[in-house]
């Protein structure tokens, strides 16, 4: 009975494996995650460049916008946005790098660490999304009043 129970338990503990298809999907997820990280980092560099070289107010007027619509990119705001973006993308990068290395080296510890990083990434982005949404909703409510 005990032997049977321990055998079943062992089977239960070791039954879930990631096969070739699963590894292929995970590798693809990691590759796309890396694409997102790279494009985001380039985007942050562009934002910093834009904040350091703001277009003249006349350019906005020439494009048909009122000066009121020219919010511009303040350096402080851009640095804050870039810092949060880098923090979030660091976890995505860690997931991508560790997942790839875990698949190549068949290392479950790296995979666990990668999945943990992805979990943190989703946790941070969820909270930030809710905060941003509340801010947008608040602004929109004021705008239409």
């Amino acid at each position, binding site marked *: 009975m005990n032997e049977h129970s321990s055998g079943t338990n062992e089977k*239960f*503990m*070791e*039954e*879930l*494996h*990631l*096969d*070739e*298809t*699963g*590894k292929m*999907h*995970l590798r*693809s*997820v990691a590759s*796309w*995650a890396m*694409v*997102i990280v790279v*494009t*985001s980092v*380039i*985007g942050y560099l*562009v*934002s910093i*460049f*834009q904040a350091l070289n703001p277009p003249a107010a006349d350019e906005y007027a020439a494009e048909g916008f*009122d000066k009121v619509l020219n919010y511009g990119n303040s350096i402080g705001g851009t640095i804050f946005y870039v810092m949060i973006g880098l923090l979030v993308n660091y976890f995505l990068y860690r997931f991508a790098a560790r997942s790839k290395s*875990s*698949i190549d080296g*068949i290392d*479950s510890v790296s*995979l*666990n660490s990668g*999945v*943990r990083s*992805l*979990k943190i990434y*989703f*946790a941070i*982005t*969820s909270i930030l*999304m*809710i905060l941003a*949404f509340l801010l947008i*909703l608040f602004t*929109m409510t004021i*705008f*239409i009043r």
Partner: protein
Amino acid sequence: MEGNKPLFDFRIDEEGKEELTELARWTKFQSIAVLTMIVLVILFFLFAWNRLGAAFSTVDGDEARSLVLILAVIVLVIGTVIGLMMYFLLRSSNRIRTAIQMQDRQLLNKGLNDLRIYFAIFGVISILALFSNLISLL
């Protein structure tokens, strides 16, 4: 041949299962939160339709109406794309969690495939956003 399989397959240990379950929980939370936001934005547009026209009072009546219409179409397109992404994220979350509970490898693969589609859409949007950002520099 069948006996060799575990040597080439990747074993997911107890800690890995726990991490994947937690990941599924957060992805589910995010997808439901974002889908709720999309519904709220659509409701906001439906209820504030007339007021939005008045908000653009600096421009002519017809122009204000077309501005609101363009804004609504943009919101609808963005909402559809994000909604589609969240659908895959939610399906991935449900499949991964069930796969861990049922020890189902096929379902785990399907869940990872959904996550792959989510990240692929996200990646394409990121590339497009970067291009539009770079074009704005010129």
